[in-house]
């Protein structure tokens, strides 16, 4: 069930109505959230619903046993059982074929022919996300940051809450569980704010991402037929596609959760206005990067232990982050490239230089800020080529063919008609994002001081624009494949 589908447009109000009007007590609200989350997931693939339930119950049970264990070795046993089981499921479904094929290819280079079985495995939707939810819980309980949840319904809602189930944000038990465990009251301003954020998420997804996808796919899938300048256009279209697709999903998830009185973690903070790569990674997929920081980088030693350990840990994080996205060398290459971008900042100790919002309180950035943002933007756009390519070979072929005689020709074959309209819309979109960059999401405060006619006219303009650009063949969200 896509967020931008008729089915979801029926599902959400139905659950909302029952939640606030019928199941008014906390216990019943949580049961409703759990059942509706299972239904939501089953609409994707009912076969993997049992895997989700099993993984949830296993985590719940092992954490209770871990917490009850008096002996340290027993505690560690339950802890590692939980970790290995959850990572085992993830590893099997997501990475088995990759390792089997890669290992076989590596042996072939040494003249050894092997026949590893590859399995026709379907990747369960959201497995990367809900696995990491569960891991954050077990680690936080093990470190005694929180008490284990006794109520299996509350824990299940934490893992399976439908707005974040298939593509995050990756929530923390310390942040989400308390909200699930306490009474929730309807708040008019929060609900309105939630609807506004959903609207903005739909604008990003339907108007920008889905239309950029047309051109990005057209160019990447047939890159040998396009000029160097067209390939740059393709990379830029993908840059906006992935941002608007993923952050649009997050906006819809956060807005939807707010309708039920629940605040989720912010996942994006206007990353394309970053002044350096370090700032970019503080603003992009925040829930994942902070997860890796807290549960991998810091336990590895973090920035303590000298420069080389810091570099090592940084590379590990970026490579693992790349690998988390998918079983392909291109994701590893993308992660490694970002690590190389980060390295100069790390060595010069400037990785925590830009902690505030660029040009805070001002409309126009300084020339220096503009150059810094443009440079960071181009570096990330370049890295996205690896992320989008089907293989390392395709990525290098794509990049090398950009730098040809056709680099300085106008890409007539791409930039015509509808594509020019999309570019104009992207420019307007980035202006709105720039104006709203100090808020939770771009249009959070737009129109709040206007009269109702003006404010509703603005919302209707966005709604009609969504309707105008909506395609009947709905594009799935990119991050569902992770």
């Amino acid at each position, binding site marked *: 069930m896509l967020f931008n*589908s*008729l*089915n979801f447009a029926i599902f959400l109000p139905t659950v909302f109505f029952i939640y*606030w009007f019928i199941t008014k007590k906390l216990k019943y609200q949580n049961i409703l959230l759990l059942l509706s989350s299972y239904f939501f997931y089953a609409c994707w693939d009912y076969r993997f619903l049992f895997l989700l339930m099993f993984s949830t119950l296993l985590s719940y049970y092992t954490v209770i046993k871990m917490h009850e264990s008096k002996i340290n070795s027993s505690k560690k046993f339950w802890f590692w059982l939980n970790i290995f089981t959850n990572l085992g499921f993830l590893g099997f479904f997501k990475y088995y074929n990759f390792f089997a094929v890669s290992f076989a290819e590596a042996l072939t280079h040494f003249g050894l022919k092997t026949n590893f079985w590859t399995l026709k495995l379907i990747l369960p939707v959201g497995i990367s996300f809900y696995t990491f939810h569960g891991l954050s819980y077990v680690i936080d309980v093990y470190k005694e940051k929180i008490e284990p949840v006794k109520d299996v319904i509350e824990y299940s809602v934490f893992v399976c809450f439908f707005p974040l189930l298939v593509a995050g944000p990756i929530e923390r038990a310390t942040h989400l569980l308390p909200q699930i465990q306490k009474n929730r009251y*309807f708040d*008019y301003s929060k*609900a*309105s704010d939630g*609807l506004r954020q959903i609207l903005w998420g739909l604008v990003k997804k339907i108007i920008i991402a889905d239309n950029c996808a047309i051109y990005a796919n057209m160019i990447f899938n*047939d890159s040998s*037929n396009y000029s160097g300048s067209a390939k740059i256009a393709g990379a830029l279209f993908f840059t906006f596609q992935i941002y608007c697709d993923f952050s649009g999903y997050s906006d819809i998830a956060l807005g939807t959760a707010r309708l039920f009185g629940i605040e989720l973690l912010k996942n994006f903070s206007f990353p394309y206005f970053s002044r350096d790569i370090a700032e970019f990674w503080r603003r992009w997929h925040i829930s994942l990067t902070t997860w890796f920081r807290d549960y991998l980088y810091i336990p590895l030693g973090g920035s303590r232990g000298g420069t080389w350990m810091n570099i090592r840990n940084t590379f590990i994080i970026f490579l693992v982050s790349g690998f988390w996205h998918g079983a392909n060398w291109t994701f590893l290459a993308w992660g490694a490239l970002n690590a190389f971008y980060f390295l100069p900042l790390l060595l010069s100790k400037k990785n925590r230089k830009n902690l505030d919002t660029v040009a805070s309180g001002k409309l126009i950035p300084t020339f220096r800020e503009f150059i810094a943002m443009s440079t960071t933007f181009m570096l990330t756009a370049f890295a996205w080529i690896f992320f989008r390519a089907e293989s390392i070979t395709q990525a290098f072929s794509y990049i090398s063919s950009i730098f040809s005689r056709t680099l300085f020709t106008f890409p007539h074959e791409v930039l015509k008609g509808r594509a020019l309209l999309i570019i104009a819309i992207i420019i307007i979109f980035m202006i709105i994002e720039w104006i709203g960059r100090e808020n939770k999401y771009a249009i959070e405060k737009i129109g709040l001081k206007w009269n109702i006619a003006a404010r*509703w006219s603005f*919302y*209707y303009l966005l*709604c*009609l624009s969504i*309707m*105008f650009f*909506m*395609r*009947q*063949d709905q594009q799935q969200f990119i991050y569902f494949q992770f």
Partner: protein
Amino acid sequence: MNRFIIKLAFFTLLFFIMIVLLSYKKNYLVDTNDYMAAMIYKHQLLKNIPGPRIIIVGDSNVAFGIDSHEVEKVLNYKVINMGLHIGLGLDFMLNEIKDDIRPDDIIIISIAWFLPETGSPGVQSHAALFYPDAKKYFKQSISEILFFPVLEMQENIKVDFKKLINNKLKKRNFNEEIVTPVYSRRAFNEYGDATAHLDLPSTFKIDYKNDIISYQYYKGIKNLNNFYQYAQSKKANVYFTFPCYPESLYKINKKVIDAYYNDLKKDLIMPIITTPDYLIFPDNYFYDTYYHLNRKGRDIRTKLFIDTLKKNVINKNTNN
């Protein structure tokens, strides 16, 4: 809470009223140059030309690949080319001519390999925008029915926007070069043949990743048989033939195509008047995709088409 619900309900109601108002205007039917709007004229031909006719049923492989004027000249039959878009699907293509079959009509079916029976809802709905009767030829789901006013609204706004831009351009006296786009209503001639591409350079290239066909038993055989029986009840004759296809792709997909042919020979009750390799051409006879012939390919295909009809259809009908 009540305030929230009331405001939201009122907002939604106003929005739906806006959609209805914006989708109400149907002027775009007259002004549009949309490719799918070619269906309007094809159906006018079907209704107005008296029988017996040769009706060519299929996807864009026939739209781009047959010179109906030449067929008409040689065989002395009126020809109607119903070919338009692969996304319409087999059932749509067969259903759309059922009401207009006349006695002694000759119906030639030439469809893409394993053409899906149900087709693409997006393409079908798009066709129905311009030719409302098209709704009878496919099953609309609830979401498609609800989405239809949105499609109409999109088309209205597009046409109005284009008119506005064209008016502004004319006021500035830009030199207008009138080139008929290949995928437009104006690309079709008076027989329903697509012709705008004929003098354009070929851009066809094989996509070795996506152009490989997988074998499956073709479930459309049952639908073809049902159609054959229906046409026979109306005293019309139906024949099956294969699409044009490039040599290099045929070599790669030959085993699958042969298996498909064997299934048709076994289970299809209408006469098959060519073999799969009859319309296999060199790659440079194709315009942009592996079903769209350029002028050279089209001329040769038309000649072969005429020969086939003479040998397997016209002379046989005359003898009968």
